[in-house]
């Protein structure tokens, strides 16, 4: 498998999905070499993780997988590579690595690994499966995005033996944007491993919000990058409508991104600055507790190929309102759904949850039932079937 991130060096859902899927596939009998662009800890007992970083460099210093990479060479000097150069360097290194490895299938996750995957296939001749967690149009919030990235996605999917899309929505967009034949794209929805959830403790990190709730305040949360894809200006405008009706409501935005300053200004312009709290990027307890302190989780994404966060909200005891433009809305039933652009309806539903404890309780109780049945094993079984199909075909 070729991937760009694994927890804890992940910036979002891709790394989590890659890790949980790999574990489920190992359980289903796969023997996995996972190749990352940087050295990784911890080690796993269900797969080998290899780093394809630049030859002759001893350490790779990095902040997160999407910033520039710093290579410290043996002589102490260093080179900084941007994401595109890094993608090229990764492809070259993977091309060398595969010469010394034996494998039956190449399974690559998202565009950053696709050129490496094509090179590996050319050298090894084994079947190539591309797993599409998002396409450029998703990441650009519905705009076309970067033409170089689009070209890599289009070419790779045309040349691949098979494409897996994480939702029907993603499959439709692949067909629409890249004209890939529908019969070569298979929808295998993402999932989550219930037992992978870390438990909450009794003392919530958001003591201020917990205390305000005790005085009748309500908390609405979004967890995610503050970026165009996530549709947060719609939530902030809906918030202004909510606050008019329910002034004791706080909107907690957990995450960071290029849209932060714009969102701060929007809230100020709408006169609801004191109702919108920005926490910055959070991990661990502060990340878990953000879900649990809230009365409702809202995911207003403009374009979300899958979107694991509503399941995370469920795990930590909170009902969800999600946009219909998300892959997860195809499989998650016990939640409220709204078009991301329909701010009026979004506000209406938020107020509905705030005013009706019974609605919130019912939503979460049913979501919990759905959540308990989730597991990656079905997805893993489908992918194993696909592997067998290709490897047997090759053998024949």
């Amino acid at each position, binding site marked *: 498998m070729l991937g760009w991130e694994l927890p804890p060096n992940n910036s979002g859902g891709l790394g989590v999905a890659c890790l949980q899927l790999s574990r489920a596939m190992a359980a289903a009998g796969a023997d996995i070499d996972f190749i990352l662009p940087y050295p990784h800890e911890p080690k796993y007992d269900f797969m080998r993780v290899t780093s394809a970083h630049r030859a002759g460099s001893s350490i790779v210093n990095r902040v997160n997988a999407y910033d520039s990479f710093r290579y410290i060479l043996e002589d102490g000097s260093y080179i900084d590579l941007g994401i595109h150069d890094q993608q090229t360097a990764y492809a070259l290194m993977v091309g060398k690595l595969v010469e010394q490895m034996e494998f039956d299938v190449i399974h690559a996750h998202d565009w950053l690994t696709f050129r490496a995957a094509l090179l590996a296939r050319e050298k090894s001749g084994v079947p190539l499966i591309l797993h599409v967690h998002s396409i450029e149009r998703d990441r650009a919030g519905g705009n076309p995005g970067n033409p170089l990235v689009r070209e890599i996605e289009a070419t790779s999917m045309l040349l691949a033996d098979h494409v897996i899309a994480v939702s029907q929505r993603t499959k439709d967009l692949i067909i629409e944007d890249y004209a890939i034949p529908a019969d070569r794209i298979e929808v295998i929805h993402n999932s989550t491993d219930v037992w992978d959830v870390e438990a909450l403790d009794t003392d919530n990190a958001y003591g201020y919000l917990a205390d305000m709730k005790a005085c009748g305040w309500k908390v609405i949360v979004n967890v995610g990058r503050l970026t165009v894809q996530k549709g947060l200006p719609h939530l902030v405008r809906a918030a202004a409508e909510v606050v008019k009706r329910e002034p004791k409501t706080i909107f907690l935005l957990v995450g960071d991104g290029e849209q*932060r*300053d714009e969102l701060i200004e929007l*809230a*100020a312009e709408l006169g609801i600055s*004191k109702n919108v*709290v920005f926490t910055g990027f959070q991990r661990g307890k502060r990340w878990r507790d953000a879900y649990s302190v809230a009365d409702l989780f809202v995911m207003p994404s403009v374009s979300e190929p899958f979107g694991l966060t509503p399941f995370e909200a469920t795990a930590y005891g909170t009902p969800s309102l999600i946009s219909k433009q998300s892959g997860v809305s195809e499989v998650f039933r016990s939640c409220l759904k709204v078009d991301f652009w329909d701010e009026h309806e979004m506000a209406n539903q938020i107020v509905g949850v705030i005013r009706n404890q019974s609605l919130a309780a019912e939503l979460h109780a049913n979501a919990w039932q759905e959540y308990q049945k989730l597991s990656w094993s079905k997805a893993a079984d489908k992918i194993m079937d696909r592997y067998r199909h290709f490897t047997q075909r090759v053998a024949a």
Partner: protein
Amino acid sequence: MSKSIVLYMHAHQPWRLRHYTIFDAASDHNYFDTDDQPEYANQKILQKVAHKSYIPTNNLLKDLLARHPEFKLNLSITGLLIEQLERWAPEVLRSFQDLTATGRVEIAAETYYHSLAFFYDRDEFERQVQMHKEKIEQLFGQTPKVIRNTELAYNNDLARWAEDAGYKGILAEGWDPVLGWRSPNFMYRPAGTQNIKLMLKNYRVSDDIAFRFGDSNWEQWPLTSDKFAHWLNETHDADMFNLFMDYETFGEHQWEDKGIFEFLEHLPDKWLSKEGNGFLTFSDAIERFEPKDEIDMPDTVTWADTERDLTAWTGNNMQRQAIANLYELKDKIMSTGDLKLIDDWRRLQTSDHFYYMCTKWFNDGDVHAYFSPYNSPYDAFINFMNVYHDMTWRLKEAG
């Protein structure tokens, strides 16, 4: 014809907020003291400014007052600066007292907290002016007769208020769109008043010292006291030159190695060498000069930026939200009777906090960025609002 310099230096330091997150809210109510975070530490900044500016400047002024019996000047010192000097640099406070003890240094009235309360809450404004007055009387043994509002923010209403409150004079910016053909070098009467007199900053010559002094790209650089005195002597149509500036001009905004102290040291010499030239306190000037005309300023004028209005503090929505939310808390804050809470609330009114949120700094640039402890106006806003949230929590706890 005799001409005088009215030198006025404004000294102030805010209580800067520490890095305060939403996770501190409801658990840590200490907004200002930051032993663990040196970049925000008020003590460190105060001691740095004392070392670079307050100590050398006061030494020099003391010396000049001793050498030149005609040398006089005016000061204003905010309550917040006095508090910090009492705590971390009492010797600097004593050196200010040494200056006023000569009887030739007059202190102006203002808000204790360097706030814009006049524009949001008249009653709160009056209390802060009263607090400042009491502090000045207690430490310096003089009662201010002339008032300046924070950031020299002035309008007709403020002048009328000041007259009713018994002040003999008030300060404002000598801004051309208001003055028209008139010169700032004379005494004026605020519109709608009978007795109070208005003194206007001559921003051209003031800013030659305060802003342009160290700028080697300025065609008049380097500015010597000789040259400066010559300019004033060559200005024939004038009673007085109102040189109003931040105290920290000397040694902090303009550094010692650019020669700012030499400039100040020789200014009295060069100026007084001509027959008839002198220095005046505000009260001297008010006694000596009658108003030449009435000045009408219905809209607020300040001494900041190219706009000379309040937009550096209340120009964007973040600033307006932050300041409006803060003043909305007033009745609840006051009704607690909790002196610590009231003091914290008032410290948050300091105009500097809103200045840090200014998004104009892309144009007015260096000045704003130079004074801000934050990376961006948005960081300043988030920090301030987190403190605001904690304050609402304390109000709730206080019942």
